[in-house]
């Protein structure tokens, strides 16, 4: 069956590695899924967990969080802090029944243009498979529909 659902994916990426990596994907003329909207942050350490929830409540079907590989952080330890935060946050979301398959965590360096394309493509096809995030949308739209 043809699946014509086009997922909305928001990517929260760090300025120094993944954003530069995504830039390299472009300059290398690698084609990748257009379903992603990239939002640039100074560091993964700056990516507040609330931003992920806000993405879902504003209609995202999937989220990507990406930054520098461990030991490569521009600020030496932002990604290490982020790593612990995501471990805890993922546990909480899973415990509350929020679909953690919709969030992709990854490290993409400034040299990994090809990896970025692959991350986005894999995520896009996974979210396409999962379909729109109706459950979350239902509760956020409730106040607008009544």
């Amino acid at each position, binding site marked *: 069956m043809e699946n014509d659902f086009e997922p909305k994916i928001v990517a929260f990426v760090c300025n120094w590695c993944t954003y530069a990596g995504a830039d390299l994907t472009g300059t290398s003329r690698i084609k990748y899924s257009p379903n992603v909207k990239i939002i640039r942050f100074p560091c993964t350490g700056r990516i507040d967990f*609330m931003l992920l929830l806000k993405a879902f409540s504003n209609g995202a079907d999937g989220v990507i969080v990406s930054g520098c590989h461990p030991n490569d952080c521009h600020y030496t330890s932002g990604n290490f802090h982020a790593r612990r935060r995501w471990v805890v946050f993922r546990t909480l979301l899973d415990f509350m029944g929020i679909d953690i398959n919709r969030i992709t965590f990854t490290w993409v360096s400034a040299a990994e243009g090809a990896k970025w394309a692959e991350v986005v493509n894999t995520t896009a096809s996974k979210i396409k498979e999962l379909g729109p995030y109706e459950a979350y949308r239902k509760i956020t739209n409730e106040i607008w529909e009544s």
Partner: protein
Amino acid sequence: MGAINEIAARLLETGEAKVVIGYGEGSFGSVRPAFARNQEEAEKLIYDKRCTQNLAMYVYKKEISPLRKLAIVANVSTLRGIIRLASENQIKNGDIITLYINELGEVIECKALSEIEICLAEITPEIKPEDKELIDKLDAMTPQERWNFWISEMESCIKCYACRQACPLCYCTQCAVEVNQPQWIPVAANTSGNLEWHITRAMHLSGRCVECGQCGEACPVNIPIHLLPIKLAEEIKNIYGTVSGMKIQESNTLSTFKPDDKENFIG
């Protein structure tokens, strides 16, 4: 007169404490927080099995805090609350005298925070069997069932913030929900706003929660909201081996790291 009354009376008489925070008889067989500032009030303090409430949140409460120096009647969760507050520099040594009542009913008077640590060293904190049971039950469910469970609970939330007010660690003078530029969490008590509030609260407590369950106790609509921070505390214990509120020098698990921390989901 019990030991607790005698000690409270002495501390007030010698001026070592201006107020003793403790428990008193409440309505219809219940107990309530009580504050002894004189001999007569010291006589009315009680301590028994019903005294499970964590009183540590009174330490920084605006009406109580200026009465320092304080003394506080403490069960294990109150001790842990005090130690955690000390770790976060909300209490310093000498601010508070702790009257810990151990399993044998003996009152142990801790004047220095280090003495509380010694008391706690003999205790292995455990979560309540009924909480463990519900957490296990939820863990065994499918994500869809867990979602349905929590959404139906969230619909009942009225955002009275009793969970926050009862928490010994929610001492921020301005809470994240009171920030409105930008408005991170909707003010309205709708399902999504309630969900976002409780996620935020659990995250802000992660690595800090002392597992007293006071938030769930306080909830006027009986939402088992304490399971969220407790689940995270258990997970943190399993992964990073840290337990909050046992030692003053412990670091906040979520604001530290080890370069070789393990995870299994970052590609």
